[in-house]
């Protein structure tokens, strides 16, 4: 499509009307985010008096205060460790299972994994709480990681679906060259399924990073909080100081926004891939 023709298309009367309706609508949808960001630069009195007005002066006092009073860095590290380790484990376990089943189909295993996929986390929550208590893993980052590895089943389904679409010639060639299954998995299968690993990885990263249910049930020590849990706990502390709470929210949202901007193509493709697994 040449640039002139696309220029024509967006200056048609119909397209102009669409712009005139959709852009303001988008601004209304985005208003809550404006509200959040603009109030981080205000004092409490200003926020109460005029929540939506621009700040009279831009000052970063709220940000300084939040960093002084809330161990954001600690929570960030906790979230990062839990997310990286559990997403890595999920991808590894999921792709190993997918490789095994693709190479040597097992009906029983497939049925069991479908079953696991259909069990809502709410059903296993209470037994898992007792189990982790007995294992001494409640209120620990390791406990969270154990719980999140349940996501391997979701990874398995997406990876196995992707593997089915790949040609077999490469594997055959490797076999003829005398490569064992371990070798084929590591140096041929994994590089071939890279696109789906990225897609699933992005999806699962967003899930673990943003998850609230698991930390709120399983974590009680302040030094083991994830970012989302920290924001939740801070509500009580800042219940009367709204700008401070909104500032903390913005700080916590920044990593996800950066992640979104760098990964948006994969997020959108993951959305469609994730939705077609059936």
């Amino acid at each position, binding site marked *: 499509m040449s640039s002139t023709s696309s220029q024509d298309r*967006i200056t048609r009367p119909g*397209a*102009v009307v*669409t*712009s005139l309706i*959709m*852009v303001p609508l*988008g601004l209304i*949808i985005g208003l809550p985010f404006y509200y*959040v960001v603009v109030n981080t630069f205000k004092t409490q009195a200003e926020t109460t008096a*005029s*929540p939506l007005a621009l700040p009279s002066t831009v000052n970063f006092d709220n940000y300084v205060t939040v960093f002084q009073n809330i161990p954001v860095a600690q929570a960030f590290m906790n979230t990062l460790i839990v997310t990286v380790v559990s997403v890595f484990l999920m991808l590894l376990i999921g792709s*190993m*299972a997918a490789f*095994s089943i693709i*190479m*040597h189909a097992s009906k029983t*295993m497939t049925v069991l994994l479908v079953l*696991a996929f*259909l069990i809502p*986390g*709410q059903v*296993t*929550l*209470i*037994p898992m709480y007792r189990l982790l208590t007995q294992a001494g893993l409640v209120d620990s980052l390791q406990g969270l990681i*154990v719980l999140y590895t*349940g996501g391997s*089943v979701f990874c398995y389904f997406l990876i196995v679906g992707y593997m*089915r679409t790949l*040609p*077999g010639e*490469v*594997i*055959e060639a490797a*076999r*003829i060259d*005398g*490569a*064992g299954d371990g070798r084929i998995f590591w140096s041929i299968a994994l590089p071939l399924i890279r696109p789906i690993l990225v897609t699933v990885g992005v999806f699962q990263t*967003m899930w673990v990073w*943003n998850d609230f*249910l698991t930390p709120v*049930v399983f974590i009680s020590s302040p030094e083991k909080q994830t970012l989302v849990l920290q924001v*939740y706990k801070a*509500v009580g502390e800042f219940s009367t100081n709204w700008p401070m*709470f909104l500032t903390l*929210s913005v700080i916590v*949202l920044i990593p996800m*926004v950066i992640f*979104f*901007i760098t990964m948006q193509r994969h*997020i*959108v*493709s993951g*959305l469609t*891939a994730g*939705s*077609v697994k*059936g």
Partner: protein
Amino acid sequence: MTLTDPRPVVTPKMSTRSGRGTRWWRAPSSPSGSSPGGNRLTLRLFLVPVIIVFIVLFAIPLVQSIWWSFTDFNGYSAETNFIGLRNYANVFSDPSMLAGLSFTIFFTLGTTILITIFAMPLAVVLNRAFLGRNFVRAIFFFPAIPSVAILGLVWGFILNPLGSGALNSLLSSLAGIGPVPWLSDSTLAQISVIVVGVWTSTGWHSILYLAFLQSIPSDYYEVARIDGASAIQRFFYITLPLLMPAMTVSWLLLMTGGLKVYDLPFTLTRGGPGYSTFTITQTIIQNGVSQAKYGQASALAVIFMLIVGIIVAAQLTLSRRLEGKVS
């Protein structure tokens, strides 16, 4: 920050097992070179981690949940008695459980219907060329990025029932309306939770529709236009039927996601006022974890699993039929 055209890595055809040609799992099973026994063993070993995950995180807890749902187990007393279906009967007489059940269903139906009504036309509009399209796409999609829990907390400030709440102060300065009890009135709180839920997910689902929309060949529309079909006719006779697969996917996600909802109502209202925005998940956590009423909570969990299972099964059957009809 722009949102470009969604390009699915995996085409929607993937799940239908069409077109099996030379696939690697059909590769000759007689290994030439390496030891035959060793090959099999390595493949079996590859399943060990997922089997451990299955046993520890799914099988054992599921069996325990089902067993506890028939007992008076409370985690402390030495003896556990089999009490038949009493826990199940209690689910339907305990006000917090009933409230959780009814609001969860209300939330699920409300968000599913509203999001579908908004997301589908939105996708059609976002598929057209207009100035600022990428901005509009990005801004509608953006609420799907941050944690829903944080969005719920932020909306709690916006919808604060006091006059100083952001929305109330906006309303009083624009229209002179007194403070509206958004989250302190039962009905308004339920509606508020649903509206915020719609706000967080409409853009996400419309991008899902958009991805399917872009796979519709443009010739269909050109032929229809030549035959004199109006824009509305084109929507109802081409777009809508061809979006059916997307709709079943979207509904499946909305229904199961809605039934499992916890973050949003809990962070926005803590389940209040009273029990008006209690969810099934919140009830399970409160009874099972905080109060150690394992039997009672497990019974609710099992009922919940059956509801989700029935909906998933119904959806899949329905979608098979619909897709069969359209294609």
